[in-house]
């Protein structure tokens, strides 16, 4: 067995679970998510000589996953980001009170699903994958300033959603129906 594979198996393969979760969140389809993870790992294996041992391998893999998905979506002609929404959000941002304590994990993920996708991505990369702003900027191909502003606005939007969930299922579903 090759040394490259042994090193790759030790460094990259332990992250399959988290990579799949990330892919599954983005694709919402098991087959597509598995396919995305496979292509990500194939590209990672081909480029493994570029990985610096001792650095954050999961962040490196998540970056590749983001690039693979972005290329696929571009090939399919999908628009990824409506950047104008950021300006609208900035000008209409209300004061946000603290989130309720009794929210379940399901409420949390449902609320996250309600905010625009590019805010979801930033929150996941920062809070779940614990990537640095620099790593996130490289993964998404945006400036660090954009990472910071999207993170700030994404969190405020999420908190607003969570308050609706905390106010009860009726308020949350009423909100969803108006979308």
């Amino acid at each position, binding site marked *: 067995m090759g040394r490259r594979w042994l090193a790759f198996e*030790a460094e990259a393969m332990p992250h399959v679970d988290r990579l799949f979760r990330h892919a599954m969140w983005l694709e919402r389809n098991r087959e597509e998510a598995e396919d995305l*993870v*496979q292509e990500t790992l194939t590209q990672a294996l081909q480029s493994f000589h570029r990985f610096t041992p001792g650095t954050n391998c999961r962040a490196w893999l998540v970056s590749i996953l983001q690039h693979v998905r972005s290329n696929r979506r571009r090939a399919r002609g999908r628009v990824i980001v409506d950047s104008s929404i950021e300006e609208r959000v900035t000008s209409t941002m209300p004061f946000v009170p603290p989130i309720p304590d009794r929210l379940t994990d399901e409420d*949390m993920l449902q609320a996250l699903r309600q905010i625009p996708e590019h805010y979801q991505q930033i929150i996941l990369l920062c809070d779940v994958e614990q990537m640095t*702003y620099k790593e996130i900027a490289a993964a998404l191909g945006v400036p660090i300033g954009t990472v910071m502003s999207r993170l*700030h606005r994404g969190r405020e939007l999420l908190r607003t959603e969570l308050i609706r969930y905390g106010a009860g299922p009726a308020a949350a579903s009423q909100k969803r129906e108006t979308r």
Partner: protein
Amino acid sequence: MQCRDVRDLADSFLSEQLLVETNHEIVRHLETCPDCRADIVARRALREKIRSAFVHAADLRPRPELSAELAAKLRPLDGQISRRSVLKSWWALAAGLALAAGGGLFVRGSGSRSRLAALAREAAGDHQNCAVKFNLAERPIRLEDAAQRYGGPYASLATFAPPPAVDGPLQVLERHSCVYQGRRFGHVVFRYRGALASLLVTASTPPVAPELETDDGHFRVASLPAARYLGFVVTDIDSQQTLRLAQALADPLSRHLA
């Protein structure tokens, strides 16, 4: 610093993305402002809840056999990639050999030995700058936090109980994860025979058996296998005692990290 500034910087503060001076300013403000303190606590709780919800969500969980299936598909690719690389580099290699023969260059030792020797020097540098001088550029983090961020051996290292060593007892002084010259280590600092000793574990191919790597006059470094990872023992005691310590740690450590 005003409340508004703190709220603007709160996310970056929690993500440890600010300069040390700015962090201090925020901490000073938080000491006297219960509202901002509550805001930071709420933000931290929200981040933790999101992370926990995401990593425990049943509908995001992969099939149990996915990892093995992917490994089975990827392993043969490695051979193809290597063969392609060999073909691509054949002319470069031939040219290199011709140059080496003509210019009197020599290839010394195997790639593996020189890689281990380079990593051993980094381990010695980490021991000196972290355990001895507290002089690292980046602050060490808890092993549990390193495990969350980077996976790897860090969580298991937090609970590793060292065996009685041949030449005296090992007293654990500290455990953390630190970075030296870009390389991350899981680091257990011991007191051993009246001096500081380090056990360092990093993500790299392990050696087959413990071996003495360097003796630079200040520190002795022995490499050891640590399950799938590479371990080092760094001490300032003599070479043979350092090697015996690495040999005493190798099996229990590999079993614990496996």
